[in-house]
């Protein structure tokens, strides 16, 4: 019933198929992936798929009214899951839906599976009528719940993460005091850095960098984008915020982040 917008199959065969996948192995999706893009390297293709799925998580999150932190948790859950799991084994969009559901629980913003399924259904079939309350719906629901358990097991129940959000907000306040208040109020640094931070969850970079580094890098890039200069003392401001961060760390995060923006043009 679902068709992924990119043409990739959105395969939803109900709980039985999922159960068989989790129990007997990687069968239920692998045979569906067509080999049209064989030329591409696997990793590049996977990165693109992950990007799309994360985009799906973000969009779903906004439509579900999720806050930034639960969305971030959902993305981290997703990336951590596919750190080890193969996309040929598990349907990424189903995993994403379950990640959203699980993230809601982890971050105390409980979401209803019905809403998640509704929004996802509409995402894949834009303009379609809402689902009926029939077997198909309940099968979907079962799939999401079963997959949630699968994620939990796969991650060894380590589902709470430290996010850069807290750091970034405190850094913002500290940096704000360094800047003239009129210059600050004129420059949308908070918005930009927050947007950059949210966007960095499109890729696995969000689990490869330290949260403080990500926070500093997004703030750095935001300040840089508007040409805001901070006073310089013995230490740079970012050196103060996080002790061992180096310019190279920041540049690495920024480079990863900018790659994501490049990918956006390629993927969509």
């Amino acid at each position, binding site marked *: 019933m679902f068709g992924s917008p990119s043409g990739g199959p959105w395969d939803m065969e109900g709980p039985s198929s999922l159960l068989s996948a989790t129990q007997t192995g990687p069968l239920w999706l692998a045979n569906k992936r067509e080999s049209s893009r064989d030329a591409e390297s696997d990793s590049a293709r996977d990165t693109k798929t992950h990007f799309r799925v994360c*985009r799906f998580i973000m969009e779903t999150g906004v439509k579900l*009214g999720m806050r930034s932190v639960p969305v971030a948790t959902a993305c981290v859950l997703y990336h951590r899951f596919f750190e080890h799991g193969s996309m040929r084994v598990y349907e990424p969009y189903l995993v994403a839906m379950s990640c959203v559901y699980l993230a809601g629980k982890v971050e105390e913003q409980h979401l209803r599976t019905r809403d998640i399924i509704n*929004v996802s259904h509409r995402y894949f079939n834009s303009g379609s009528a809402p689902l009926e309350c029939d077997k198909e719906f309940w099968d979907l629901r079962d799939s999401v719940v079963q997959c949630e358990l699968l994620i939990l097991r796969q991650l060894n129940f380590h589902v709470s993460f430290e996010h850069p959000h807290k750091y970034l907000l405190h850094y913002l306040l500290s940096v704000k*005091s360094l800047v003239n*208040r009129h210059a600050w109020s004129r420059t949308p640094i908070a918005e930009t850095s*927050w947007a950059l931070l949210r966007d960095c969850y499109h890729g696995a970079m969000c689990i490869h960098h330290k949260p*403080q580094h990500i926070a500093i890098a997004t703030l750095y890039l935001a300040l840089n984008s508007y040409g805001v*200069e901070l006073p310089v003392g013995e230490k740079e401001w970012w050196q103060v915020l996080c002790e061992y961060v180096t310019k190279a760390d920041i540049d690495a995060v920024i480079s990863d982040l900018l790659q994501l923006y490049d990918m956006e043009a390629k993927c969509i």
Partner: protein
Amino acid sequence: MDRDLLRQCLTYHGEALFNKLKCEQTENPDFQAVVSELCKATYESKGEGQGNPLVEQFIARKADILFCPAWKTATVQEEEHEEEEGGEPYAIMPPLELFMEVSYDERRAMLYRDLEKGDIVVGRINNIREYGFFLTLLCVAGGLKRDIEDLELSALCHVREIPSTCSHDDPLSYYQIGDFIRAGVKDIDRYQEKITVSLHQTSLSTSLEHIKLGVITREELPVHYSRSVRAASDSSETYQCILSSCHGYHNPSVVDYLLEKVGVSDTHPPSMMRGLQSKLFQQEDFASAIRKKQSASWALKCVRAGVDHFKHGRHVEAMNEYNKALEIDTNNVEALVARGALYANKGSFLKAITDFELALENCPDHRNAKKYLCQTLVERGQQLEGQEKLVTAEGLYRRALSLDGSNPEAQEALHKITDTIQKSIRLREEALANEQVKAPSKQTTSAEKLRKILKEERRMKKKRKRSASSSSSSSTSSGSSSSSSSRRRSKKKKKKRKRSERGSKRHRRISSRESRKSEEGKREKEKKEKDQDEDEVEWYPAPPNTSATFLNQKGGPGFGERDEGKDAEEKRICQLYSLSAASEDEESDSSRRERKRRGTEDSRTKRRKNSQSRSPEREERRSKSRERRDKSRERRKDNNRRDSDSKRRSSLDENRKRRVSCSSAESGYSRKSSFRSEYSAKSGSALRMRHDSSKRNSFDGGRYENREKEETCELEEVKRVSESREEESSRSDRGHRKRSESAGDRTEHAGVTSVQDERLKKDLPANLLDIFNQIAQFEKKKGAGPKK
């Protein structure tokens, strides 16, 4: 595009960015509009060229987002004073430059650049002169967090700027060197580097006005200052250490709090990804919108299933479906209309009206809802008319007409009821006049003996009848009096007078027993007491459970009366009924109802007799009648029940209310109804009832005052009762009644005797008068009824 921002950016990044911008934003008309201006900015730039080309590429690509005026969502935040209470919602950090070790000059320049009039500074008094005192500034409170303690900034607070507590005192005498002072910045001379401060609250900017100026204790010093002091003294205290040691940092909702503080929306989060611009998302794709739509569709499915059930006569299943639909989608218009229709079909007009009204509230143009509501209002009005609640009924007709001005039924009904009301007002006036005639004769005690004799006689007769008649006296249990002759009936009428007095006595007794009349004999007292006790049991136990109201139609003594059609009285009551029916319905309807009533009466009386092991030949009739009853239940339910109830009650209360408010007793009806069914078997009530019915009709005109009250009472009551519950309780009650039958019978004897005893004692002449009046009125009504 925000030119100032773009210029600032270009000044920083130089020509490389400008070239990329020109390349990336060629299609952006906004950029083309400002590009010429920006050339200048580019040449002013430092042109360092050490910028990261990737970052520049990014800025150039996203320039339309980054420099869009709408991108900035944060409004200028009011700088609130740091909360110095224990609960800091976020980590309040020392100024960053403390850790950065920014040079003395730069920090000093920054402060003079950024400090503004209206800010709050905290300092220590280092010198007091006759014209004021000098402060060494320690820190800046309010929003601006700066490390200024070592900058040797001093500020003057002029004596004029110190509010004096009393006029003759030197305000400066309150201050000592070393005091911590919180003061507002009054003026900054940036060239001379002089700061003057003030202790007047008015010197503060509006957002800081609530902060009290003056001497503060060490504990009141700003948190960031005390933390920076600690950090300065201990080099191991890094920014990160302090951050993670703060309570505020561990606040679980710190992100939400700070997001609001910095002015970023989390419901419409910003993103630099073009596909995630939340303004592009369709509102109907959001979870709440889909859910709403889905609920409506699911509910509609249930409604459809319910309608299907309904069409096949499975009303319970239909109701379940409708309720399910409303559970899925509260206020689903279709479900409400369908359920309302079902309620109306079942005779629960009030529930039906509620549903229709709710539906119309949500969808004011729903055609069916309007139509059904109109019909139901008319039906309900007719029902009320049957209960003599003419004014309320009239109101309902008027409402129906206001919904649908062309509704012929409503128009007709309204027309009729207006006539009836006028007529009943006339009747009431006559009745009042009659009562005045009767009143004086009440006190006579001369006829007591005669009454006693009569009563004895009647009791004997009754006993005889009860033993003799198994099938002929159908309403044995409900009073054993219905089978009596017309002669006895006249006696009963007399009782009415007595009863009214008795009623008053009982009420007195309820409030205070000792206020009983002394002239009454002891024996009488005893009897009265018995009687009263019985009455109390009958009327006062008051669980407001309405489930039993529905039973009264079956058990209600009102039918017993009508059981014998030959009786003159019976005829009279029938006429009354048909009269009211005629006024509320078409004639055919009234006759139909009459038949139905007959059916229930039969079944009821049969049941009673069965319980007393009488007349087995009625068994089959009973089952038949029950079937009939089921079919026409809703109709009869209310009419019959209320008729009989009101009759009984009015008898009780007539004295208290002086007839005018007979129906006020009905307000108590919901309370009593549950018990009534149990005790309806008692003869006393049946006897009383009969009189009341006649009286009621003659005086209905005087009743409207209380009708409104009753209506609301009933409304509540009806709402509370669910259909299924009615059904259930009726079933259980049937059995219950049988069980209580024997007991009721026993009490019956005692009760009847006492009632009659008393009644007979009371004034005969008054009763006679009464009877004549009533007969006259009935004649009138009979004549008037069909015409209406």
